[in-house]
């Protein structure tokens, strides 16, 4: 397939480049004229938001690394030097730490949207799996990044999480020693976590690229969960969704700004302002909020290997979700029982989050176990059964149809306008 690309761009410079390397044609095809279902709601903002958020994390991270020292004797001080002496260092750091929280909020909503509207179903299974890989990479990156300031929670978080691997029979202890590069979390651990924390985001970028590439093969799902049938069902990505994504980005930036400028330590733990002390564990070890549900699952199982397996299992189960959900209907809009179950799952995860934030005593143990059981029940039992027994609502014939009928999402006036435009075609 050698040969120059026949570029349609009129600008001579762009044409010259595009003839030899058709990146402009590609951009135009994938982000300009790319046919996108016309009925997206604002939930479809979150993929773009996550991409922007990742880029912000990389940019702030690279500049923070210019002033950070990955050595146990200097890490804490070097972070404080960034906060106090480096020009706008406090801004870069707070953007990075709160940006991590925003990244998880955005991605969790993005995952919820994928589940609610059945975006993981055929033919988008691989797209979904790549997404779960992104989630796992994010978690690993966030965990290692949290160790770098070398506060008390950094140190003890690293100790507890790396010790999870000691639950593996036979080789567990050797793996932990390997991770640590010693016999406790120490300088070699910090040094390698810094190296990997710097590397992983670029791996993330690569997987995000695959995720988007897979998306552009299958095309986007939509709130109705039905396939695009005619050109009337779609709009070019630009300007319609560039404009709509921009609105979401502004709102996202405002939320982030509110956190960074007015409550920068709101989501953090005060204990991380105490330098790491290997001889004294803080009264309560809690991970950052975005890990709390998984931490709750870990603690809800009164067996070391069992807890670790369940915690990793709670993510692994997402990989096989496309095959656990046997219903042919994608969108929860037409699945009355599934819709209820989705909201129950959200409540379940919020409950797990609360459990993770409290000492495992009294009622919290009960809630933790019940919520953990429900989580797995949802995915492993209810979803497979639901596909067989749930009576789904009738699906519209096309994405344009509900609009024409003036049904879901549009008023009668919108329907009339649509009818007119149909006539024109």
């Amino acid at each position, binding site marked *: 397939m050698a040969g120059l690309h026949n570029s349609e761009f009129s600008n001579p410079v762009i044409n010259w480049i595009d003839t030899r390397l058709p990146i402009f044609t590609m951009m135009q095809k994938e982000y300009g004229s790319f046919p996108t279902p*016309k*009925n997206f*709601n604002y939930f479809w903002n979150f993929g773009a938001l996550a991409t922007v958020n990742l880029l912000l994390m990389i940019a702030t991270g690279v500049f923070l690394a210019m002033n950070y020292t990955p050595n146990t004797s200097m890490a804490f*001080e070097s972070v*404080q030097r960034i*906060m*106090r002496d480096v020009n706008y260092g*406090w*801004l870069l750091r*707070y953007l990075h730490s709160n940006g991590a*929280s925003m990244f998880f*909020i955005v991605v*969790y*909503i993005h995952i*919820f949207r994928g589940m609610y509207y059945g975006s993981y179903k055929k033919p988008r299974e691989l797209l979904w799996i790549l997404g779960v890989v992104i989630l796992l990479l994010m978690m690993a990156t966030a965990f290692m990044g949290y160790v770098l300031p070398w506060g008390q929670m950094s140190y003890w978080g690293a100790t507890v999480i790396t010790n999870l691997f000691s639950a593996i029979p036979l080789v567990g202890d050797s793996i932990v020693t390997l991770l640590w590069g010693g016999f406790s979390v120490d300088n070699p651990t910090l040094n390698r976590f810094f190296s990997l924390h710097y590397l992983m985001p670029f791996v993330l970028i690569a997987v995000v690229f695959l995720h988007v590439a897979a998306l552009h093969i299958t095309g986007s799902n939509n*709130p109705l969960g039905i396939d695009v049938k005619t050109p009337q069902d779609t*709009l070019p990505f630009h*300007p*319609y969704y560039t*404009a*709509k994504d*921009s*609105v979401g980005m*502004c*709102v996202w*930036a*405002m939320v982030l*700004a*509110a956190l*960074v*400028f*007015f409550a*920068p*330590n709101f*989501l953090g733990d*005060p*204990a991380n*302002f*105490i*330098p790491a002390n290997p001889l004294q564990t803080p*009264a*309560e070890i*809690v991970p950052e*909020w*975005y890990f*709390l549900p998984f931490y709750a699952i870990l603690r809800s199982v009164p067996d070391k290997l069992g807890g670790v397996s369940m915690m990793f299992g709670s993510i692994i189960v997402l990989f096989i979700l496309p095959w656990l959900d046997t219903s042919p209907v994608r969108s929860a*809009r037409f699945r009355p029982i599934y819709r209820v179950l989705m909201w129950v799952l*959200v409540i379940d995860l*919020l409950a797990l*989050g*609360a459990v993770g*934030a*409290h000492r495992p005593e009294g009622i919290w143990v009960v809630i933790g176990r019940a919520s953990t059981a429900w989580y797995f029940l949802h995915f492993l039992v209810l979803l497979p059964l639901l596909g067989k027994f749930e009576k789904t609502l009738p699906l519209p014939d096309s994405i344009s149809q509900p*609009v024409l009928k003036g049904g*879901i*999402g*549009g008023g009668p006036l*919108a*329907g009339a306008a649509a009818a007119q*435009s149909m006539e024109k075609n």
Partner: protein
Amino acid sequence: MRPVALALFAGLLAGPALVPAAFAQDAADLPKQNWSFAGPFGTYDRASAQRGFQVYKEVCSACHSMKLVHYRDLSGIGFDAKQIAAIAATVEVSGGVNDDGEPFNRPGLPSDMFKSPFANDNAARAANNGALPPDQSVLLNAREGGADYIYDLLTGYADPPAGMTMGDGMNYNKYFPGHQIAMGQPLHDDQVVYSDGTKATIEQEARDVTTFLAFVANPEMEERKRLGAKAIIFLALLTGVTYAVKRRVWADVDH
């Protein structure tokens, strides 16, 4: 679907917010104070922070280090270059080694960090009945409850309730977790003499030193909030304009 979606979005944003709130249970019982630096437009009360520095220097610094703070940082609460140089010069710091290879001391400079009262943590423990007085550079951020907690702790010393057995050398404090604190009551009425004539009650001293500790823990706060106000206003306008653009772009689409 739209209201539900908005509710969900709000819920997911609020969800993580509830978590620290759940943690702050204990902190919720702390009596609250009005702080000059609270709120989106709060600034450090310069006079109070300067008095607080005096309290730190004359009282706290006997045991507590402040290793991350430099004398030059005092410009942030209104000391001028001359005052800072004079303050720094009151301490002797190591000047490294001279040309003969002998260690020597020199007077402190504004670029030096606050001199620690003890050479190392072991010396600090040995002098304090085995307890290590924590470094105060970011102490305010490192405690649940922040400024309120520090203030309440400093003013919360009392006689132990009847029937409570106190550990050897421990002191009763209403707000310290467990109520037994190794640090003896540090502040009393007229512990310091304020040069600006402010009456040095224990409450005043606690308020001043807390303001100073808030400043050293978050010296960037005033700049941060100033920049934040601009950022939020700008982003709000941009959100409005962007939303208007989106409405216009979508005006001819039935959806």
